[in-house]
C-alpha cells in the first residue's frame, strides 16, 4: 500500500531545503495512492507510452511493480515496422522522435507481451492508435477480452504516422468519433490521450469526455522539426517529428491547467516531467496522476525518485493525502 521502504535506496534530494524542513514537521505518513476512474494505483507515477517498451526493458534495473502503472508502447491493429532511421534527434533539453509506432500489433502484444505483463503486479494500460474509427473499436474490443487489463488509452495524438493518430486529436468532431469507437468497444476505463498541436485543447478534451472518456492524458509530443545544414534537408524522413522532454514542460503544464478547468474527469499529466518538483506542479495544476516519459532515458530511476520525492513533499507540507493538492493552485 505504500512504498516508504524504497526511499532508503535513493537519496535524490536529501539536501533540498523543502525536504530538510520536513524533518521538523509532525506528519510522517502521506497517502499517495490514487484511484483514477477505477484504476487503483499505489502511487500516481506511471511510465508513459512509448518510453517504457512493454515493461521488460527496465526490469533489469528495478522492480517495475513499484510504479503506479505502466502504459504500453502504442499498439496498432496490425504489426508495424515504424519509420526509417534517423528516429531520434537531440534538441536543447528535449528530443525529437519519429518512431512511427513500431509495434507487434494487438495480436502480437497479446501473444508475446501480455502473458508476462499481466503477472507484473501492476496496472497495465494498453495504448492504442488507429487509422480509422473502426480500428479503434476493434482494438478496444479485442483488448477487453484480456483478463486484468486496467484500462485503454486511446492515442489520438501520434504525430509520426501517415493516417489517423494526431489527425483524430486535432478536431473535436474526429476526437469524438475515435473515442466513441473505443467506448463502444470496451467496458474498461477509457483514457483519451490528447495532442498539444491544437488551437484550443479544451474543446478536444470536452469532445473526448462527451464521447465517453473516463480520463484525459496529456500531452503527447509537440510537433517540431530539425534540418541537417550539411545535407540542407530535414533530418527526418517524415519532415516533422515529435518534441518531448523538459523543454515542453511549461506547455504541458498550461494545457493540464486549461483542461482541468474545462472537464470533470481525472487528468493524467505528462510532458517533460523529470523531477518530483515537476510532478507536484502538474498536480497543483490539476493532474491526478503523472506519467514519466523522456526522463526515463536520462535517469531510469527518475520515476522512483519522483515517487519518494512526492511523498516527502507531502509530509513536509503536513498534507496527509495527495488528493488534497490536486488542482489546488487554481
Amino acid at each position, binding site marked *: 500500500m505504500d512504498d516508504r521502504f524504497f526511499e532508503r535506496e535513493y537519496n535524490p534530494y536529501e539536501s533540498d531545503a523543502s525536504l530538510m524542513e520536513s524533518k521538523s514537521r509532525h506528519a510522517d505518513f502521506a497517502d499517495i495512492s490514487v484511484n483514477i476512474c477505477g484504476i487503483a494505483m499505489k502511487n500516481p507515477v506511471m511510465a508513459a507510452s*512509448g*518510453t*517504457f*517498451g512493454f515493461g521488460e*526493458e*527496465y526490469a*533489469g*534495473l528495478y522492480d517495475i511493480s513499484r510504479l503506479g502503472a505502466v502504459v504500453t*508502447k502504442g499498439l496498432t491493429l496490425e504489426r508495424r*515496422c*515504424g*519509420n*526509417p*532511421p*534517423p*528516429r*531520434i*534527434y*537531440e534538441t*536543447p*533539453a*528535449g*528530443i525529437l*522522435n519519429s*518512431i512511427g509506432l*513500431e509495434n507487434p500489433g494487438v495480436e502480437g502484444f497479446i501473444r508475446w507481451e501480455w502473458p508476462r505483463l499481466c503477472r507484473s503486479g501492476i496496472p497495465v494500460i494498453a495504448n492504442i492508435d488507429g487509422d480509422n474509427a473502426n480500428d479503434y473499436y476493434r482494438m478496444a474490443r479485442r483488448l477487453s477480452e484480456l483478463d486484468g487489463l486496467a484500462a485503454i488509452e486511446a492515442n489520438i495524438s501520434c504525430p509520426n504516422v501517415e493516417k489517423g493518430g494526431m489527425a483524430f486529436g486535432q478536431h473535436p468532431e474526429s476526437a469524438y468519433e475515435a473515442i466513441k469507437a473505443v467506448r463502444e468497444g470496451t467496458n474498461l476505463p477509457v483514457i483519451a490521450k490528447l495532442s498539444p498541436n491544437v488551437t484550443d485543447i479544451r474543446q478536444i478534451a470536452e469532445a473526448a469526455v462527451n464521447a465517453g472518456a473516463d480520463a484525459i492524458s496529456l500531452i503527447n509530443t509537440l510537433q517540431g522539426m530539425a534540418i541537417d545544414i550539411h545535407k540542407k534537408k530535414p533530418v527526418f524522413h517524415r519532415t516533422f517529428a515529435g518534441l518531448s*522532454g*523538459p523543454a515542453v514542460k511549461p506547455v504541458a503544464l498550461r494545457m493540464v491547467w486549461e483542461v482541468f478547468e474545462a472537464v470533470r474527469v481525472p487528468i493524467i499529466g505528462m510532458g517533460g516531467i*523529470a523531477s518530483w518538483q515537476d510532478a507536484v506542479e502538474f498536480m497543483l495544476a490539476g493532474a491526478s496522476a503523472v506519467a514519466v516519459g*523522456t526522463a*526515463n*532515458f*536520462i*535517469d*531510469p*530511476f527518475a520515476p522512483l525518485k519522483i515517487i519518494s520525492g512526492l511523498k516527502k513533499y507531502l509530509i513536509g507540507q503536513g498534507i496527509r493525502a495527495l488528493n488534497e493538492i490536486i488542482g489546488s493552485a487554481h
Partner: protein
Amino acid sequence: MSLFCGSVKIIDNVEIAPGIFRMGLECPEAAESASPGQFLQIRCFEGLAPLLRRPISIAAADKDSGMIEIIYRVVGEGTGILARKTKKDMLDIMGPLGKGFPVPRGLRRPVIVGGGIGVAPLLFLAKSLKENSSRDSYGRESDFCGLAFVGFSSGEEVFGMQFLEDCCFNVEICTDDGSEGHKGFPTDLLEEYLKHIMPIPASNRENAKSAGDSECTSASSAILPEAVYACGPEPLLKKVKQIASMTKIPTYISVEQRMACGVGACLGCAVKSSGGGYLRACRDGPVFEAHQLIL
C-alpha cells in the same frame, strides 16, 4: 542483475591522440559482466542540455581490479564535456549494455577490421580472443596469431596498436592520407589478404565454407580465418559485409546509431534488418552478424 546504473569514480581521463580520450572508471559491477562489443550509456552532463546519455563502447574491462575503460572521440557537446572531466570526478553510467561480439574458445586466426574510433571495442575483443585461445576445444595448445587491419584518417590519430600486438595480433595500419602505413582503407587489406589466403574463383566460392570447416589449407597452405570482426564507419561496415557475403567466413559487425534509452525501450536506434523491419542497435546489437543487416 548484471545491469549497473549509478555514479562511479573517474580514475583517469587522458588524451591519447588529438581529440581522442581514454577514460578509466572504477566500476566493479560493470567490469564483472562486461563483454567485448558492449557499451555504456554515459550521462556527460548533470543538467538538461545536452540531455541524452551518450553510448560509448567499452575498450577494456578487468574483473580483478574492477576497472572499466572507454576510448572516445570528442565529436560534440556531450563528449566535449566528458573530455573536460578529471580524475576523481564522478560519472553517471549505465551498463554494460547490448549484445557484444561472440568470443568462441580456441580461435587461432581471428581477423579484426577497425576504422578510427571503431578500433576501441576491438581492443577489448582482441584481448578476449587471445585469452580464449590458449586451448582449443580439444584442450590443445593453440598457435594463436590474430590479424588486425586498422584504418585512421592520419598517422597522428593512431592508437592501440601496441596493445593489439601484445595480444598477438599482426597489425597492418592504413591511413586516409598515407601518413602512416598503407594509404587507403583497411577493407582493401582485408580483401587482399583473403584473396591471397583463399584463391578461389568466384564460381567455386560456395566451397570456401567447407574448406574452412575441415581446416584444409588453401593454395597458400595457411590457416583460414575462423571469424571476421569489424567496427567503424558505415562505408567500412558495408564493405566488410560485402566481402563476408563472398567468403562465408562468419562475420560480425558493430554498428552505430543515434540512441536515446539504450535499453531497447524507445525503438529510437533502429537499423534495417535483412529479415524485414528493423532491429534495435542498443539491444539486438550493437553487434550483428553481417548478413542480419541491410547497410
